[in-house]
């Protein structure tokens, strides 16, 4: 009661300090109105920089618009851009390249990231130092990493080829990582894994550290083997974190651009041309704005749909 009356007094004082004109205006607004007043700037910004461009892209995807031909008449061409994209063998090839990249980077990053987190979580001597060392690649700019690895992959002077040669005895200049059709897709997988495994490791580490010790103690009392503890306690409890890491890496790698452009420019030929690189070429080098808008919408719907399904699965795992 005392608290209520003191709040009332405070509100009265604040109202008294409000200039008469403004007081009149504010008094005319409901709570909902005031709430709208506060969120309106954010809504306007959101509409201007997110929703409007999305709707505009949707509109352009049904036209023959080219951004470098401003004076040209914009024609409504219906679903022709979508039909062209879905019938274009090169686009499907690009999507296959993207799927290969996504699958292997995520699989390797989860496997290595989780293993590293599990090892770091053993709290061995110097584990903090090794955590810092492992996290370093993630802190570098993708452009720098791409450039750096092009030198490492250089068949005549690159350290990577020499390392492979040292362990296998193969002549270092006998193979090219980024120049070979068979090896180039793996070369980008290796670099992305090198760079982003630490991120997955950190998320897994957070998951591992969130498991209370008493659960393991109870398991030990029940004489559960370490193997059983791992599969029945560690994995299920880290799973939501792991799924979150997969979601982040999946979204990031679906739109991967800078690292791969620096490394291979999408080549040799088009074997490392990811969907994002193809999209950039269509939109800002060929200037096929309508066509590229349709491709962007297709990619957006794909990612949005997949992410929604995934988030629902993630919530189910969390609730278990």
């Amino acid at each position, binding site marked *: 009661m005392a608290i209520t009356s003191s709040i009332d007094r405070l509100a009265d004082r604040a109202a008294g300090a409000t200039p008469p004109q403004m007081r009149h205006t504010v008094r005319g607004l409901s709570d909902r109105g005031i709430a709208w007043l506060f969120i309106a700037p954010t809504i306007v910004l959101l509409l201007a920089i997110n929703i409007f461009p999305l709707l505009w892209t949707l509109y352009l995807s049904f036209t023959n618009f080219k951004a470098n031909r401003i004076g040209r008449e914009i024609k409504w061409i219906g679903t022709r851009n979508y039909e062209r994209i879905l019938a274009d063998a*090169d686009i499907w090839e690009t999507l296959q390249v993207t799927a290969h990249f996504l699958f292997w980077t995520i699989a390797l990053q989860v496997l290595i990231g989780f293993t590293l987190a599990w090892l770091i979580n053993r709290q061995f001597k110097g584990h903090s130092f090794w955590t810092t060392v492992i996290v370093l690649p993630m802190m570098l700019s993708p452009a720098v990493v791409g450039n750096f690895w092009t030198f490492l992959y250089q068949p005549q002077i690159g350290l990577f080829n020499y390392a492979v040669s040292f362990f296998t005895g193969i002549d270092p*200049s006998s193979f090219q990582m980024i120049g070979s059709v068979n090896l180039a897709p793996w070369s980008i997988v290796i670099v992305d894994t090198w760079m982003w495994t630490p991120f997955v490791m950190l998320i897994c580490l957070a998951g591992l550290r969130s498991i209370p010790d008493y659960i393991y103690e109870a398991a030990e009392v029940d004489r559960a083997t370490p193997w059983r503890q791992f599969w029945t306690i560690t994995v299920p409890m880290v799973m939501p974190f792991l799924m979150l890491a997969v979601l982040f890496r999946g979204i990031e790698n679906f739109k991967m651009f800078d690292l791969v452009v620096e490394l*291979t420019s999408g080549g040799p*030929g*088009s074997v490392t041309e990811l969907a994002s690189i193809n999209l950039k070429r269509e939109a800002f080098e060929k200037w096929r704005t309508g066509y590229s808008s349709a491709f962007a919408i297709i990619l957006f719907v794909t990612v949005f749909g997949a992410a929604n399904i995934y988030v629902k699965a993630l919530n189910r795992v969390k609730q278990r």
Partner: protein
Amino acid sequence: MKKTILAGALAVAGTMGLMAQNAKAQDITLCWAAWDPANALVELSKDFTTETGIGMKFEFVPWPNFADRMLNELNSGGKLCDIMIGDSQWIGGGAENGHYVKLNAFFDKEGISMDDFAPATVYAYSTWPKGTPNYYALPAMGDANGWFYRKDWFSKPELQAEFKKKYGRDLGEPKTQKELMDIGRFFQGREIDGKKRYGVNIFTERGSEGITMGATGAMYAWGFKYENTPGKYDMEGAVNSPAAVEALEFYKELYECCTAPGYTDSYMQESLDSFKSGQVAMAMNWFAFFPGLYKDENVGGDNIGFFVNPAQNVAASTLGGQGMSVISYSDKQDEALAYIKWFAQPDVQAKWWSLGGYSASNSVLNSPTFKDSQPFAADFLEALAGVQDFWQEPAYAELLLAMQKRLHDYVVADKGTAKEALDKLIVDWTETFEDEGKL
């Protein structure tokens, strides 16, 4: 007293500010690629500032980003550049999209005649529609794709003897594309002065225009044409003719037999690097780089030789070079035109050549001393006589990227056959021309 001093200081500061503002108002910006000739142009332009009082600013962009950066600038109607030294392929878009000022009236008024410039450069850099007397640029920098080689290696007696024994002719500048490949094979993997060397460096770059500029060098030499009838866009039978297929197969073979490992995305800089580091016996590049190469302490001078792109069925070279245009969005068009008027003068053109730029002016090219003025001058003239260029249509970027993809897929990624690559290219180009309403 204090007030007087303060007033005086303000007056001086105001006057200086006004002067600075006037000077700034007269500055013009010239946009071009960042390479050796651009540095020569900076040096040359100091004379223009001295003569006219108009200051020059420069916006130079590295080649791999040049087209992206500058075409974005033009498409957005930007005012960054008053003068653009744009690639020859941009002329169609520059004219049709209204980026470049048409210069006919200005040329007539100032007495600048296109007859004073090499016809091939006028055709390639200035006219749109092609070959018509509608000028949108002054030929600024003549250029073509040529070759250079390690003269010191070629002149080694033991290598000469071995080459003659193997091929039955002297080891020297190749006269045909196939001879060039023989020499490439001869040097490939050979140890010279204790180091492993390779045959050639050729353009294989995927991202911008590299592999197209390189491969068309071979294709033009085989007689490649874009259309059966100029202006009709009838590409079937021309683009994928047996000669074109053979030329493309040749380029792929040259890449496979004779290049150093790792050069799968090689363009101008990689060509220079591979040559200067002593990896290759021969390399292709634009003539624009030849003055710098000749001056190089290690591989230049007596150690380097130059030759024009070898013929096969016909003598032909890939065109490089650029024209100088005034940007229609510029607020300083008068000053920009004044620069073009100054640049077109014969004595300025002569100095341009002496500084390392490639003049397209007949007064320079037809001079009796020109051929001997530089070790590559005669080759440049020969190349200029047979230059051929890529499409110069407004949709050139779309056409170019399609060719980049098809050629790289075939040559470097070993995908399909040469005929399939060229067939697919026709499909791509047909789609583009249909979109453009030209088919």
